[in-house]
Structures are given as C-alpha cells and as structure tokens.
C-alpha cells in the first residue's frame, strides 16, 4: 500500500487543457455537474473549484510570449503579436498547515496517513468555518445538504494502492502524483530544465515553507510561468490561524492599553481638583 506523505505536482507547462482530470474526478467521486452555462472566459465553463468541482482547469489568454508554449524558444518575433494560452489544473492544495482543518470545530476535517486533508462527510455539520478559513477558496458547501466538500486526494483509491483519478487520467503527465519529497526533487529538476531551454519564467509555487510561509508549503504544488494572480491563485496565501498568536498578542496589547487607559483615567479623576 502507498504510504508516506503523498501529493500532486502540477506542471502547467505540460497541461493541454483537455479537462480529463475534471471528468475523471467527477466520475470517480460521482459528483454532479455545475449547470450548463457558457461563461465566455476562454474554454473555462466550470469557473472555479467548488463543492462539486474538485479539479478545475483554468484557461488564461494573455498577450505575452512564452517560449516553447506557442512562441519560439529563442525569443524571435516571427508572427503577429505576442500571445500565449496558459492552462492550469487547479485542486485542493492539502496545505502543510491547513486553515480548514484548524478552523473545523467538529473534528470533521483531519489529516490522513497520506498527509492529505480530508473532510469526513458523516461528521461535518455544515458550519462553514472551513470555507472562510481556506486562503485559496477551495472548500465549498453544497447547496442541497449544506456540508463542506473538496478534493479527498482520492483517499479511497489510495487505500487500494491506486493513484488519484485525475493523475491517472492526465495524458501528458501535467498532474504527477507521488511522494512529496520525490515530487519536489522532480519539480526542481524540471524548473532547471526549463530555464536551460530558455523558459526563464518557470518557478515553483507553494513547494515548501520557504517558498510559501503562510501555508508552510503545499502538498499539491505547481509549476507556473506567470504571477500567481494570472492563474487565479493568491500571491501570498496565509492560513488565518497562522496569525492567531499574532492577533492574540495584538489583542493583549490592546487590552493592556485599554486597562492602562482605564487605570490612568481613574487615577487622574482621583487626583482631580
């Protein structure tokens, strides 16, 4: 059986936007559709991650060249205007420090033996604290039952030694599943390879705590070629509870200040004329 800290490395330079991950996820997890509406946002008609969309492919059309991705590697300008079409399969990040898990008052959200963050549907009471605690906007409540749903890292498949449905279906190895340490090593080599080939833009998003202190690193991290905002990712996500100590300290100072003020005002009143 698979053991250890498992996760996803999603290499956006290999994504062809086929959405096989979205469909495989919905099929395996038997998730309903999100309605049939054309958004007008390139080829993205599911919009975002949600209660019934646990993989979501973003399509970003941008008027900039990206070497090897529709533009010549040597930067030569050969055709009409710079353009590239970025695609990224987004998913729950299974943060090292997970806001949802820390916010959950019922213990419905737990960290599994694979290092993934899992919502137990039979314990969840639908309070929604996790929804606001996720810095990525991943967790979502389903309208009909009110409970919170998100990617399980295919916990049921991992128990059977199968890779998650999305990674299994990905035809181009854009979604790679494996042991986190190995994935990080592979990701670093990939960034180096891309830099050597002239894709200086490539970098890792959320690969570790240094890279992303607000989450202390992601179990589902990404190789990107533009600022995170372009992919609808926060540039500096911070788990709310990360600042808990800080806010308690701030509050303590505030209370102390108020107390001092109160004491001061009493004293000054006493010492009045």
């Amino acid at each position, binding site marked *: 059986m698979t053991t250890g800290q498992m996760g996803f490395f999603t290499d956006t330079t*290999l994504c*062809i936007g*086929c*959405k096989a991950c979205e469909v495989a996820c919905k099929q395996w997890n038997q998730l309903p*559709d999100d309605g049939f509406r054309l958004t*007008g946002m*390139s080829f993205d*008609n*599911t919009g975002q991650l949600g209660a019934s969309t646990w993989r979501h492919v973003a399509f970003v*059309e941008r008027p900039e060249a990206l070497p090897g991705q529709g533009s010549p590697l040597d930067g030569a300008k050969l055709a009409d205007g710079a353009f590239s079409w970025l695609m990224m399969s987004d998913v729950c990040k299974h943060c090292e420090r997970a806001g949802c898990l820390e916010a959950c008052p019922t213990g419905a959200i737990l960290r599994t033996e694979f290092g993934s963050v899992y919502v137990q549907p039979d314990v969840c009471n639908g309070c929604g604290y996790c929804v606001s605690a996720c810095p990525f906007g991943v967790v979502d409540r389903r309208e009909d039952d009110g409970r919170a749903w998100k990617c399980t890292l295919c916990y049921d498949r991992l128990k059977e030694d199968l890779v998650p449905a999305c990674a299994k279906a990905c035809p181009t190895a854009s979604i790679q599943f494996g042991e986190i340490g190995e994935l990080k090593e592979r990701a670093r080599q990939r960034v180096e390879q891309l830099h050597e080939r002239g894709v200086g833009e490539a970098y890792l998003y959320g690969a570790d705590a240094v890279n992303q202190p607000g989450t202390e690193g992601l179990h589902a991290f990404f190789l990107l070629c533009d600022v995170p905002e372009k992919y609808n990712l926060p540039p500096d996500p911070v788990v709310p509870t990360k600042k808990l100590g800080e806010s308690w300290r701030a509050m303590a100072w505030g209370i102390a200040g108020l107390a001092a003020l109160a004491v001061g005002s009493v004293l000054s009143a006493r010492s009045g004329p």
Partner: protein
Amino acid sequence: MAEAHPVGFRWVMEAKNRGATIIHVDPRFSRTSSVADLYVRIRPGSDIAFLGGLVRYVIENERYFKEYVLHYTNAATLIDERFRDTEDLGGLFSGWDPKEAYDPETWQYEGVGGVVPATGHKEVFAEKGAGRVDLRGVKVLRRKEDPTLQHPRSVFQILRRHFSRYTPEMVEDTCGVPQALFLRVAETLCQNSGRDRTSAFCYAVGWTQHTVGVQYIRTASILQLLLGNMGRTGGGILALRGHTTIQGSTDCATLYDLLPGYLPMPHAVQDAKLENYVRNNQPATHWWSEMPKYIVSLLKAWYGEAATRENDFGFGWLPQLTGNHSHMTTVADMADGKLKGYFVMGENPAAGSMNGALHRKGLRKLDWLVVRDFPLNETAEFWRTAPEIARGEVRTEDIQTEVFFFPAATHTEKDGSFTNTQRMLQWHHKAIEAPGDCRSDLWFAYHLGKRLKAMYAGSSLERDRGIQALTLDYPVLGPHDEPDVQAVVKEISGFTVADGKPVPGFTKLADDGSTACGCWIYSGVYADGVNQAARRKPRSQQSWVAPEWGWAWPANRRLMYNRASADPEGKPWSERKRYVWWDEAQKRWSGYDVPDFVADRPPSYRPPPDARGLAAISGIDPFIMQADGKGWLFAPSGLLDGPLPTHYEPLESVIPNPIYPEQQCNPARDEYPRRENPYHLPYDDPRFPYVITTYRLTEHHTAGGMSRWLSWLCELQPEMFCEISRELAREKGVENAGWVTITTARAEIECRVLVTDRFKPLRAGGRVIHTIGLPYHWSYVGRITGDPANELIPFVADPNVSIQESKAFTGNLRPGRLSFGRRAATDGVELRQPEPPFSPPRDKPGVRDPKYLPAQEPPK
C-alpha cells in the same frame, strides 16, 4: 492533435520533453498551438501553397536527401514528352478533356505505356490501363532514368519547375504566413531530416476536407520523400482519424468502392468475370501482382464450398458498382427519390454531415430508414424534432418514411478490436452485458444476414445465389445468440480450406481456392490459432518496438516500407536510426521490426527487364506496393486531379487564386449543383466576406451523439459558439459571450461568440482576411442543444475520395439572434439575396460546363 487526440498527444509531449521541436500549422490557435515551439497561423484552404513552398525550399537549397531521393523515389524517371505542366498551361495539366476529367495518358513514364498504381479504382474512373493488358505496367522495368536528375523531363526537374512559383513571397501572399516564420519552419524541418534525424507529419481531417484534400496529403508525401523521412523511425505521415477504428473500417471495409484489404469493388460492366477483374486490376510487377490470391481467398471466405473454380469462385455474386455511390451522391439521389432504404449505423448524418437540411430532405423521401446508435440521435429523430419541423415548413404527418431504431451496444459491452492510426489492432474485452435490447453490430449484421438467407432460401433466381451461398456459419454464444467474434477473426485472418488451420500470413494465400481469407492485409492476426491482437506483453519484457503488444497489419510490421530505413547497400543510414538491415552472413533481411521486403532478396539484386511479379522487385525498391517499387514524387496514375499537387482556392473563397490567376479552383472538383445546395461563387463580395472553418473541441465528440448526453461533458462546453478575433468583433460591434447570427448560401444559424486573441485577421491576396471558427458539436437533440454548424456547409467534393469541403467556405456574421433558421433546402428561397450581380469565372474558359454557374458578366 492535442484538441481532438489528447491521449495520443501524450507521445508528442514526451518527444517534446526529450527535445523534439513541435511545429503547429493551423488557422486557429488551439490547445496544440499552446504547447508548440512554433505556431503558424495559416489561411484556411491554402496548405498546398505552404507545403509547396517547403518543397521549393528543399529543392532550391539542395536540402533533399540525395541518395534516398535518387534510389528510393521516382525522381530520376523520365516522363512522356507530351506531358505539360500547370506552368505551361496556366494552372492545368495536359490531358484535360471536356467531360470534366483528366486523361492521364500524357502523365506516364516514357517508354512504359501506363503504370498501374498500387491500388486503384480503375473500373469506376477508367484510369489508363483499365482492361488493357499491354498497359498494365508490363514494361515498367524498361522505363528510362537519368541518375544525374538533370534531364528536363525527369521527375525531379518537372517537380522543380512545377513548384518554382511557390516562393516565400508567394507563400506569404497566399497563406498569410510571414516570410520569416515560413523560413524558420523550412530551416527547422531541413535541419531535422537526413541520415541521423527524421521528422514526422501528423494530420487530421482538417487536411482532407477540401476540394483538393488528397493533394494536401500528396504534397506532404513529396516533402517527406525528398527529406528521406518515409519508412524510417520517427518519420512518416500519420493520419489521425476522426473516430475510433476508422482505420479498421476502411481496411475491412466500409467504403462503397472497396472490398476488404483495399481490393477494388468490381464494376458491373467491365468486370463480368473474375478474369476480367484481375486483368483490369493486376499489375505485372511488384507486390500488387499478388492480388488474384487475395480476391480468390476472399471469395472462398464468403462463399465457402459454393465457390469453385468452375463458377469463378462466385465472383459474379459480389455486389458490383455502376458508378459513383459516395455519400453525397447517394444523399442527392435520395432527395430525388431514387433510394428506397437506408441503413445508418454508428453515424449521424442529419447532424454530422454537410448541409444537414439536404440530408433530412433525403431521409423524408425514403420508404424506410434503419438507425443503430446509443441514443435517439438527430437522424433517428429527423421526422419529429428537426428545425424545419419546429418551424412548420415540414409536417410530420406528411413524412412517409418508416423509421426503425435499434439500440447499440457500446465497446465495453462487446468483444472486438480497434485498429489505430499506425495500423495496430488492439483487442477490447467485454466488461459488462449490454442492457435491454442493445446488441453489437456483429449481432445485427449476422442475424440480418441469417434472416435474409431464410427469406431467399427457396428462390431459384440467379441473382439470389449470392445470399444463398454466403457461409455465415459462425458459432453463436449466450442467451442472445451472439456470433463468436473469434471465429470472425479467424476467417478474416485466413485458413487453409482442407483442414481449417489458420494461415500464418498472406504469403501463404493461394489463387486456386485452397485458402480462404476475409481480409488479406489482416492475414496472420489469428496465426497459430491465437488472437494476436489481444496480446498485452508489457514493454519491460520486450524490445522497444514492442512487437508483442497487439498486432499490426501487414504481417505485424510496426513501420511500413521499412526497407527505406537502410541505405541502398542494406546498411542503416546511421547508427542512431538503425532499424532494418541486410544480414550478409544469414543472407536475409533482419532488424528490430519485421522487414517489409522479400526476406532473402539481397540489396544487389536487379531484375531482368522482362521480370514479372515479385521477381521484378529490385534490391533497392522499398515501396513494394508500387508497380516500380519507388516513392512517387510524381504520380503517373491513381489521381484524378493531376500528377502533382497544385494550389487551387476552395470553391468558396474570398480572394482570387494568387498563384494561378487563370484557374481559381480544382478543375476536377465534384459539384452538386442543386437548388437546395447553392454555392457562393463571387469573391470580394460584401454579402459573404469572411472565411469559415469548422473543427472539434476536446470536450465533445463529432456531432455530439455520444458527448452531448453526458452531463460531465455538457458542462465543460455547454453551448454552441463561434470564435472570432477582437478586430472582427470591433468591426461588427460584437461582444464576448454575446449572440451572433452566421449565414452562408445554404443556411443561417445563431450561436454565442468567443472574442479571442487566439484568432487574428491575416493578410493574403492583398487584403485583410477574417476567419470565423466554428465547432460542429451541437444539434437539435440531446441534453444540450444548439444550432449545427454543418448546416452551413456545401455539398462539393474532392474528386478522388469524395470528401466534402468543410474546412474553408464563405459566410457572414451579424450581431444578435436574428436567425430565422432559414435553409436553402426547405425554404425554396435561396438565401443569397439579392442575387449575385455577377461572378468571376472559377475555371478557364471551356474547362467546365457553365450551365450551373451564375452569370459571369455584370448585367447591362
């Protein structure tokens, strides 16, 4: 390829990761473009100009693979002195006759008097050599050659002159491709071809669906032959087919003019006897001279003991052609009331084929229609929910057609094989029982045949002998009497009649009735009584060629014509590209793959000039199916629209032909001039000023018959839309995600619009050209519906293979939902209002019958 074949595209991505350069040439910036190293935006319908430019670049800069070209192609062969090129005749070749067809007599090799092509449909199209034994390549070994390639009538010099117009400047003006980009493509391709490196071309139906579709592929073939990229690893031209096992269905054989294994369908008049058929089709030399063995074995497979030498092995019982019965011709005949019944199996012509309204008109004129599919698709529902019914132009109660719908089993509900683009058969096993009345196609065809046999059992008419003699003796299994598919595979693969033992391959077939084989190219798929297609040996347990994964025709060869992977002496061109070679010690061909050559024929062998059959194959003839064993840079026969590819504009174009101003279109195109099928002929016409091209999206499959019923796919692409550039949107006042109405001479549809930088206007023919992109996945039944793009497309065809021109035609776009759903096929009023004032000629004077064309002079 990433768009329509994402799973196959994984290997392209793998190659890219290993350092391969990906070049993508397409009118739209697609998912494939998004990961390509070079994206080339091209004007729809101009690919011959682009490829022709590459051919010229390779020749003029002497970048061709000289040894390969000299020995393995017909470059050195001299052509008949009466031959005239498009350069001499202003866009036409010699041999054009007033019957709107070419006579290829002047295209032949000098001193040969006719070369028979590898396979062909001579009976129908009366190619040179039909019925004349003296012209069937008997003298092909006496052809004249100039090994210096300098003779003005050598194929090489003809090729050079023919493509001399296709300069980078001309490519830019015709295709809209900037010269710098074109030159970058040319240089990349040349640098990556030669002894040590190869380049591959992948194409899908976007290349074929033109009035010059076959010549697109021909141009790529010429280029690949010049660069030495055929018959070698990492080379070739890969046809990505539009559906699963379309390759298998052509092999085995669903086209109207073919029997299994690309044997021509007999012609009713010319082939009264087997002897005539053989005489009309068998070349004197090289591998196709073996075809009598294949036809006789086919007849033995179908008619069994009833087929004897005395009765011509039942040859006369085969269906015989009386003319062109291709798709569009059949539907046009149907609309004229000439057809009584129609089987539609696994196809959805009412939504998936060109000019759907004309198709539905045809369906309304039938006595009966049988549809076999998973859902009740548009073809099955044409009498109930079609647009013309919804608009009240046609009333259901007036339709006499009796419609039978048979639910079909899916591939997971039956055993069978898929043949993929590299000719590999892979077996799939039944996973679950089909629900309810759903049955396999095999079940349907078998039981239909059984019932017909019962019906005709008592007939004494000679014409019913064919049905009576059909063997149809497969064992049946299970509660529904499903025929044993293994028995069918065995019959396809072939066996010796005396003992029923499977043959090892087609080299063991005979023409005396001692063997039976349902499809000679598949012979060996059941060798040793084992279903070879079901083999799944992991790659870790065999060589990188993986010969024990599935089975590939012919003879389990994974790479066809692989003799060309070795040099004339039989040594690999380079160590890196080592594949098949001559083993001098063993006196045999050897290699990683099954050599595609006569196993013990040494490279030094040269046939005597009067050699026949396989003895005529020289040691340096890799292309053994051709009558001369060479790759044809110049095709002396087999093509109806010229021996060399020539850029002609699509029938509907917005500009005059920049390369051949005198001849606008393919002179040999098949037109269907009908009231329901009007063409828009004038160019530079403000009423239809834009180019429309159609295509697929990853999220749906063809006309949506399978994908628009599945919510997980529906949500990914829920609505019909078109794609246009920002520039066109601004010009027309269209907003992203808004509604537009698109009109052609045939129909108008409405859809949403994506305004995107992936589409850009380009400059060609001295003007700015806007392209409208249309996915064709939607129609009027299903979970999600939308207007079908195919309603817009005309009936007009490539003359060689009768494919429609759906990748380039003209239309207009207006903002808003203004469609009245008009169809030229049902309104009775042509959409072309007002009538075109006049149209410049599409052809040189006298080339085609002007009867159906609009006035060519402005009215006084």
